[in-house]
């Protein structure tokens, strides 16, 4: 494991600016933050320290607790336990507004400004300079121009915000936040929708703020950006602090391992190929499938009784890949062949007619229909496949629901309960049942074990193995690499929206996957 010391001595020769600041008292000190949602522990005793003039990367996979940490720090969500000090004084903001007043401002990925108002109006919304109660438009524009000039931005501040690029909108949001006397600036995935040049512009602004002594918390999924601009990294995993260290002490491989892996000894545990039979006939062959700006063209062959795993960090193109395969997003390049026949996939219905099934990652927004019962949710895909004019008789629906409730041990075993009242794991099982009821040839699972309890993990993995043995082709996206290697016959690693490495047979090892994700030679694991 990596050192998780809260404040290691500054590394020799490391950026002097930061070293100087590290000797100061911490700007923001969060101690023992905890938060549970209805029994699910989202944050468990997390400590976080930010120094003045520090750009601090906050990393972790989906559900690691990053957003919860940010929301509890900014008062959007009330914390269950923990204390927070800003420049030595205890603070406890109860809303984003109070946090801004205290000096903590947040800029979200989706810019939270009014696109139809002018840049100047956005900068001074709610605090316009006035005279006799009237807004002094000219004064406001002068101030806005001066403020943005400080960020090296010379634009017409009278034009509506929406006429500018996303990068400029971000800088305007940052300028607004900083101008409201922010000492701590939280940037929540600001770069997700920016191109490379725009990212550089944003980085320049971040470095400038750093020089002014502002502490920046930077949330991103792009490791290159972390190493380009950050001073320190904190990694969360499953709601806990996984590690925190200056950038120089955390090479890529260690970072990826902190984010995805567990103990190395556990990670290298031997996998059992015994479960998987010999690969059967090709079910679907994709050649050069891709979509510009979505995921780079890739080749993919899915065989009966064969599990292909997709690994990579969030935003690396895993979900994008499976959406192309299922036709949920139409591809603009490449060909698909199913059972030897050339096909086009432009919508889920076509994919379903070919015998595909897809359990999406976003269970709540793309999977369940919360108001409908477990039975209705289970029969939904089968009913859609049959068409509206061939309704499943109620007796048949009941039989299907009862069979899968028994088979997958869905609890409580009440088919007439609205599915929204079930736990995450049971919802996931019901969604699996939805697709199994259609008897697919190819089942695509996107993060099938995310956000569900440990017991359900084991059951779903067992189910994946069983389905594979019965000759189904499976395509599984998973961040749980230790689990993935136990059932995958082949793992494709993605980075920056492209398939970069394909591992098969005995090469399917956690260490090899981690190395591929971090873009480091496999041997580097030991050296780190």
């Amino acid at each position: 494991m990596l050192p998780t010391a809260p404040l290691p001595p500054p590394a020799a020769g490391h950026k002097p600016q930061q070293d100087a600041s590290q000797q100061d008292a911490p700007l923001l000190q969060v101690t023992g933050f905890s938060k549970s949602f209805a029994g699910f522990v989202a944050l468990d005793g997390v400590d976080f320290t930010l120094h003045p003039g520090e750009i601090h990367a906050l990393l972790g996979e989906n559900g690691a607790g990053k957003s919860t940490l940010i929301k509890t720090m900014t008062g959007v969500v009330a914390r269950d336990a923990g204390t927070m000090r800003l420049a030595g004084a205890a603070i406890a903001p109860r809303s984003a507004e109070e946090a801004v007043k205290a000096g903590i401002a947040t800029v979200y990925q989706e810019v939270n400004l009014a696109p139809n108002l002018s840049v100047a109006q956005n900068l001074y919304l709610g605090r316009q300079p006035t005279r006799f109660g009237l807004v002094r438009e000219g004064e406001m524009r002068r101030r806005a121009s001066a403020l943005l000039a400080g960020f090296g931005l010379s634009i017409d501040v009278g034009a509506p915000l929406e006429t500018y690029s996303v990068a400029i909108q971000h800088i305007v949001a940052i300028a607004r936040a900083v101008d409201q006397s922010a000492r701590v600036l939280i940037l929540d995935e600001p770069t997700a929708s920016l191109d490379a040049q725009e990212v550089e512009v944003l980085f320049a602004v971040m470095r400038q703020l750093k020089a002014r002594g502002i502490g920046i918390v930077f949330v991103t999924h792009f490791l290159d950006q972390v190493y380009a601009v950050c001073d320190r990294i904190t990694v969360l995993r499953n709601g806990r602090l996984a590690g925190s260290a200056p950038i120089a002490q955390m090479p890529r491989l260690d970072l990826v391992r902190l984010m995805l892996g567990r103990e190395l000894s556990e990670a290298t545990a031997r996998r059992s190929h015994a479960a998987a039979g010999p690969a059967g006939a090709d079910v679907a062959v994709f050649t050069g499938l891709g979509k510009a700006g979505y995921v780079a063209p890739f080749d993919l062959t899915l065989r009966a009784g064969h599990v292909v795993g997709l690994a990579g960090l969030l935003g690396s193109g895993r979900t994008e890949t499976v959406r192309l395969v299922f036709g949920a997003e139409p591809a603009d390049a490449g060909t698909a062949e199913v059972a030897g026949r050339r096909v086009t996939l432009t919508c889920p219905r076509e994919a379903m007619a070919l015998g595909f099934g897809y359990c999406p990652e976003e269970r709540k927004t793309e999977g369940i229909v919360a108001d409908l019962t477990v039975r209705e949710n289970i029969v939904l895909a089968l009913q859609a496949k049959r068409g509206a004019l061939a309704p499943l008789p109620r007796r048949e629906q009941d039989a299907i629901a009862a069979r899968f409730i028994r088979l997958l041990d869905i609890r409580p075993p009440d088919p007439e309960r609205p599915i929204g009242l079930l736990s995450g794991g049971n919802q996931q099982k019901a969604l699996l049942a939805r697709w199994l009821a259609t008897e697919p040839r190819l089942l695509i699972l996107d993060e099938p074990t995310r956000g569900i309890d440990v017991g359900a993990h084991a059951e779903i993995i067992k189910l994946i193995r069983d389905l594979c043995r019965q000759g189904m082709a499976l395509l599984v996206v998973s961040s749980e690499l230790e689990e993935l290697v136990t059932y995958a016959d082949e793992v494709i690693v993605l980075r920056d929206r492209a398939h970069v490495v394909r591992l098969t047979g005995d090469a399917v090892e956690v260490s090899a996957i981690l190395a591929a994700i971090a873009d480091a030679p496999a041997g580097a694991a030991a050296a780190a």
Partner: protein
Amino acid sequence: MALRLPRIGTSQIVALALILAANWVVSPQFFDIRLQDGRLFGSLIDVLNRGAPVALLSIGMVLVIAMRGIDLSVGAVMAICGAIAASLADSHPLPVVLAASLGAGLACGLWNGLLVAVLRIQPIVATLILMVAGRGIAQLITEGRIVTFTSPELAFLGGGSVLGLPTPIVLTLAMMALTLLIVRGTALGLMIEATGGNPRASALAGIGTRLITVAVYVWSGLCAALAGIVASADILGADANNAGLWLELDAILAVVIGGTSLFGGRFSILLAVVGALIIQAMNTGILLSGLPPETNLVVKAVVVLAVLLAQSPRIGAQIAGLGVLFGRSRSRRRS
């Protein structure tokens, strides 16, 4: 099973019963029904008869709302289709009149559906277009006049009776039965509820959400056309300025009183019609009571508020928390 209670709609039926009882108090002969010239007469029959147009509108509206949509144009579509029927009634045979009028309603619904499903315009804006333009179209058809007709065939649809029941009631019952058959007899009902509940999940489960969206607006247009025909047949003419005026709001109200959420999902056609009857029973009651008709809108608002509050989970929770009055509301809420 206690879980199924909300779909039976206890609060709506209780509300309707209370209003009917109130009507009986203000007008003791409210429940008197007599047979005269082979047709039933009486205040209760009046409620059903007068309520028919809004009930017809609410049958289409409930499907649109279940899909997270809304159809503001139904009042204007009533005016268009009523104008077409009245204009053609004396010069063409009834089947042609009906085909032209219903066809126009279908086309209006198709227009709305395409705007919403294909051009992805927000339903409230998309149907607002026809709500405004439709009344103008109706005025063009009637050339700005009130068109009258004498055709007894068409008049029968408004003033006649079948087996003693006024024709509007029979048409409404028939339309309700047909809609129930189509929606609940096939898997469409499930698909509408799924799509309204979670459009993205439903599309990924292979439901043709776009086609269903178009279909519900078409059906709403058809229901509006029928309502327009009934309204015209009733007054033996078409008044483009006033036919169906503001009835879209009554129809939306009827659907909401019927327990279908404006956020889509679960819906009940039967309870939407009950909602329409609640509204009409109030209108009739105020007329019978001798109160000035101007109070109608205020009383209506109060009653509607009461019905909606009774359905609200938050209020229900407080009532249950107090442990008073409604033993049933508790089980209702929990399900």
